[in-house]
């Protein structure tokens, strides 16, 4: 926050007005694409094709959503898969990451430096997609939901932030827990973790978004439609024109009239982004706090 020191000169006033203008324009640029896709998803397809995408819907129609939310089509399968991947993946990741970070935050833990390096190394180097594909196939986890909710179990970056957060907690708390006779597991679960609520909230949004948005894991290591998550369906609808008909099962039911192709794509964008946009403002304050404390020296 800038301190208000002295009176503002004319030059400063001009700058301040200019500054507000620029930032306002930038903010609008972040909102407009969302408005366009959201309004297109509820626009009558005929009007949409004639008049093009608009910021506000001209002729409201929910036909696209009716196509998506019919039972027994691939869309419902992908929604289910995305939910499973996100819920299971996020829970495991948070459990495993918080425990690993806790150990690494203890300074006099033998081999601490080596183990930290062991984790951080994976941030910069990887075997790449080809060896990973072969190795995962060898484990028998490729082409399944398992590989998709296991793949990001420990994100080194989030782990480091978590570790730094633990390190910022007052040290006496752990010692007093020990003197009260609590064992290490108890100290961790009933003393340390409750103090980390803002950071845990940050991890929920980071990992949640990571799993919810993940489409490369499927692209690299999976192929069956039965384990496909929503973003992959989205990507395939853009790549292959027929995917819309196949996924919604619209090709087999002529009675439903014209297929709102553009509307279906846009309504899928809404379904994927709405949970993020709705939850985001509530969790936002936590991750700014967490990042501020955790990212000081990464």
């Amino acid at each position: 926050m800038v301190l208000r020191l002295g009176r503002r000169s004319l030059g400063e006033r001009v700058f301040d007005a200019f500054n507000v203008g620029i930032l306002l324009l930038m903010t609008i640029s972040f909102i407009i694409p969302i408005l366009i896709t959201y309004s297109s998803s509820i626009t009558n397809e005929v009007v949409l094709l004639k008049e093009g995408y608009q910021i506000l819907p001209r002729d409201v129609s929910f036909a696209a959503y009716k196509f998506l939310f019919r039972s027994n089509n691939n869309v419902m399968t992908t929604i289910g898969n995305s939910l499973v991947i996100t819920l299971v993946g996020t829970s495991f990741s948070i459990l495993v990451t918080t425990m690993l970070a806790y150990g690494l935050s203890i300074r006099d833990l033998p081999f601490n430096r080596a183990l930290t390096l062991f984790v951080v190394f994976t941030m910069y180097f990887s075997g790449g997609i080809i060896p990973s594909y072969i190795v995962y196939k060898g484990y028998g986890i490729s082409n399944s939901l398992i590989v998709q909710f296991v793949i990001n179990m420990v994100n080194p970056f989030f782990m480091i932030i978590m570790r730094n957060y633990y390190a910022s907690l007052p040290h006496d708390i752990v010692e007093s827990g020990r003197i009260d006779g609590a064992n290490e597991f108890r100290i961790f679960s009933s003393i340390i973790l409750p103090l980390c609520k803002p950071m845990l909230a940050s991890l929920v949004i980071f990992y949640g978004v990571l799993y919810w948005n993940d489409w490369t894991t499927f692209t690299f290591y999976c192929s069956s439609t039965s384990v496909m998550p929503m973003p992959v369906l989205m990507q395939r609808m853009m790549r292959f024109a027929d995917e819309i008909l196949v996924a919604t099962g619209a090709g087999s039911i002529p009675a439903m009239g014209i297929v709102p192709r553009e509307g279906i794509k846009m309504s899928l964008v809404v379904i994927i982004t709405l949970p993020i946009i709705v939850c985001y403002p509530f969790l936002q304050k936590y991750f700014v706090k967490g990042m501020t404390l955790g990212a000081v020296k990464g």
Partner: protein
Amino acid sequence: MRLQTAIQARGRSPLVKKLRSYWPIYLMMLPGLVFLVLMRYVPMYGLVMAFKKFTMTKGIFGSPFVGLANFEVFWGSSFFWSSFRNTLIINSFRLLVSFPASIILALLLNELYNQRFKKIVQTISFLPYFLSWVIVSMFTYSFLASDFGYVNVILRQLGYEGRDWYLMPHIWRGILVATNVWKNIGWGCIFYLAAIANINPELYEAAFIDGAGRWKRVLHITIPSLSSMFLIVLIINISFILVGDFEQVWAMTSQYSILKANTSVLSTAIYEIGLEKGFFGQAAAMGFFNSALMATILVGANYLAKVLTGNRQAGLF
């Protein structure tokens, strides 16, 4: 009694005693470490297949060594070199734009008087970071689609002809850079804002008393306090200069083959050659080459940072 031994063990005791007292901690760390070994380090070891004539039936370890044969194949391919060039061009261009852009945004946000407005701008500017490239690619499509994209709608309203943006390969490197900056600018400045918040306000007051105006205070206090952070961000960015952003490039351009000559990057080339066409050995060799180059650049940039600043503590490690 147990407690006493634990306390004693934590004192100046030999390593073994210390290890013993910490066993629950190690147990808690175990799942994470096992994950990293199985899912990250074993594939790293699998990179030896870059030097092998790989067949699925024999597996990574059973396949015979062929020396540098795989490297020779991609070394002579024009697809590899055009992808290499694209990666370098797109990423350098992106570095030139996005690195200063986040800094400028952080400084501009910091100069706002109205805290409420600042908060709203900040909150909205982080949002695109949390949307995937598939979604951003749909946003781009809603703007640039030839028949009903928003840009063409506007152009037609103004009396111009609409254009086929997806048939113009030469603009797409620019679009990749622009969308990348759009998506990441807010997130990029979060660290700078955190650092600015930690600057001692007395510094500004002292400077004001000495007659420094607002611009001078930014130039002589805010920017110098961020310099070590600039360096770290720069090193990280430079070391990723040869790593193509698979998610972005594949989501935004893979459906338009005409764009490939200008937008294919190393990571998408590796995916196409390896997983789509099935030339595993060659693709693994490209991946190996890519990683090795990246490691060299990372270490080099880090070393350079230490030499240029004359500070042994500077840099990442």
